[in-house]
């Protein structure tokens, strides 16, 4: 049967979530999919913070940091989507590998 839950369980969840996020960021061409991958990564980081906050005896400081992470995620999502929309208006595509006007 499945073992009783310890901190390791949470950390492994966050590790898998993180890897999935990285995979999404790296492999997808669509900029919005890349953003979704980033959200996964941020969530996995948050799970880590809160798990350590709960088990590590640092009281609620971990949770406070997690709140800031959420705040920054919101800001990032707003700005990134605005940029994506702008790119779409200009290049008529949101595929990150096709938008390379700055490359050369």
């Amino acid at each position, binding site marked *: 049967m499945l073992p009783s839950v310890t901190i390791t369980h949470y950390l492994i969840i966050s590790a898998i979530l993180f890897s999935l996020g990285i995979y999404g*960021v*790296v*492999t997808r061409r669509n900029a919005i999919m*890349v953003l979704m991958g980033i959200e996964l990564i941020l969530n996995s980081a948050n799970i880590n913070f809160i798990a350590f906050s709960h088990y590590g005896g640092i009281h609620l400081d971990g949770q406070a940091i997690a709140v800031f992470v959420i705040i920054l995620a919101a800001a990032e999502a707003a700005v990134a989507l605005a940029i994506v929309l702008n790119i779409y208006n200009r290049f008529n595509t949101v595929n*990150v*590998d096709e938008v*390379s006007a700055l*490359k050369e």
Partner: protein
Amino acid sequence: MTQEQLIQTSIVILLLPLFGFLFLIFFGKRISGGGEQSKHRLTGWIGTILLFIGLALSMIVMIIKLTNYPEAITWKFQWIDFGNVPFFGPLQVFLGITIDNLAAIMLVVVCLVSALVHLFSIGYMHGDIRFTRYFAYLGVFTFSMLVIVLTDNFFTMYVGWELVGLSSYLLIGHWYEKKSASDAAIKAFIVNRIGDIGMFTGIMILYYTFRTFTFSEIFNAIQSGNIPYGSNEWLTAAGILIFCGAIGKSAQFPLHVWLPDAMEGPTPVSALIHAATMVAAGVYLVARTFSMMTADALVFIAYIGAITAFISATIAIAQNDIKKVLAYSTISQLGYMVMGLGVGAYTAGFFHLVTHAMFKAGLFLGSGSVIHAMHHALHHQGDHHTDPQDIRNMGGLRGKMPVTFFTFIIYTLAISGIPLTSGFLSKDAILAGTLAFGDLSKHYLIPIIGFFVAGLTAFYMFRVVILTFMGGHKETHRFEFIHESPAVMTIPLIVFAVLSFFMFYSFNPFDASSGWFYHAMERPQSVVPTVVQAHSIETFEEALHHAHLPAMVLSLLVAGIGIFMAFMTYRWKKINADALAEKFSGIYKFLLNKWYFDEVYGAFVVGGTIVFTRILRWFDNTIIDGLVNGTASWTRAIVFGYKDHWKLKPLNAKVFIFIGLVTSIIILIVSYQAMSAPTEGLVSIMVSFLGALCAGALTFFFFWAGAGGFDKYIVDGIVNGVAYFSGFFGILMRKLQTGKVQTYIVFVMLGVIVFFFLLRGA
């Protein structure tokens, strides 16, 4: 108020004009809108009100400083720490603020003049297309001057120094559409740079020796006997070099040429430059560094001041532009101050700076008022040919502009040194100082020039007053349109006029030394080694005491003569000025053309620079290019000449083979000699054998090289090899550098994994 609060207040004073500048430069256009007049003036009022707040605060600072804290208040912080710099040692820069009596008084002077100039400008610059920007620049000008006033080190002082230069450039060139204005701005900037190089060098000498920029630390180090390179001459040199900065900024001979041209700026700017900010900076610098000046440096300073005072006073007599006369009178008065400091009358020199700031700012604003009125009258008539600044076109303005006239008269009395005015007190003090100095050191030329210039000053200032305000106006039609200026312009005039009286500085109208100013501004003890010290304070005070009465009588006498002559010539017409000019036309032309300084500088400095650049160009074109091209053609001649013209030019080929043969023979002989040398043994045989081998190879190589083989295989081989390798690695790297963020993330992950395994622990 505690010391910390004083420091904080002074920082607020410092930042207020800067805030005004930033606010006006970024939001000024938004506020002033589309040129609507009421909104338009609002920007000017913002700057003015900020400055008045600064003025109120600075008065508080000064009063508290003078009454409660006899010692200087300093505050400093570590600005930058480079750690241990190779070849130099620890390198830290501390910046800070110091408020001593000198700074506190100067703070009030700068804020006062600047605030009133702001107020005056609202009226004077009314309707100007760059009204907002003008006020922004006034703010930055004041800010940079306050930086100089408040700093406790040479570093920030130099920064403020350059900022003053920049802002004066901006303001003098305010009407940059006019060619003469932009030229004047550039001239002021460049001439100031010349002085600044000297100041920079001086600062570097001090910094290299003392590893600090802070004034008090440098002075303490000098006092403890640590002087640059252990030589008094270096200390003198450092002092004079720093004084060079003052020569530039305070328009001393020989760098005074920028100041009259700076009259191209708006008149209130001239008032600001001449009274509170720019030229005062130079005198302030000398006052700040007074205690590190050696006797030689002080004598140098005194002579520079005296020469300046004399030259510019003579020029002022012959000028007809009202602002030009005032400009030369400023230079002359600055010469006075510098001379005063140089002879050791420290308090008197600085005192004259303060009193002069008041009446000279007033004189400029008064002339601005006159020009404003003339300009409007001429504009009304549609007359664009008559110069509104020429005093010959004025006259009789007394009735039309009473406020301007009466205030102008007060300033003129003050600058001429008539009793009951502040100018009398300070001028008399300087003259007494020069007399005492002349007594002590036998440099009698300085007091003679001092008194002569005092007479000249009274003469040319009354000439301006008589020609401008008295008599009758030549053109009655224009005269009808002349009006008194609005209140924003007359109020500053009245304030300055009130401040030109004696009681603000000393209650005794004949002796400044009993006033608060003299108690606040004690001459600082010299820190230089005793051998090179100027006359000690006690001796000087003693001599000064004796010189006081004769100086007063003499100065009154010469001023009286000057005024009398002015009235004789221009009011009662007993002396015909034109006839005199005709008779001494040589001297008159010499003075009218300002001693031909501009012409001489144009011919020698500017022309010399151009000639020098021509020489450099010739050198570059002929010698350097010749060497390069010659080498190239020689190489070509040797290599290609042989290959291409083997048949066409057999001589060339034969010469070449001959050189090769001769070389190989020489090498063979040398190696044979080496073989038969007395030091027999394996080594010498080896050496000789190698020599022979080399000779053979070299001979072959010469022929081969002649055929172009060397070039083709060795030189080209290296070049092509390098190109090929860079190309190869470029292509290799290109595979990795896809330019896609995602690829880079993969690499980052790879790196993270590697770190995981590296750091996984035991």
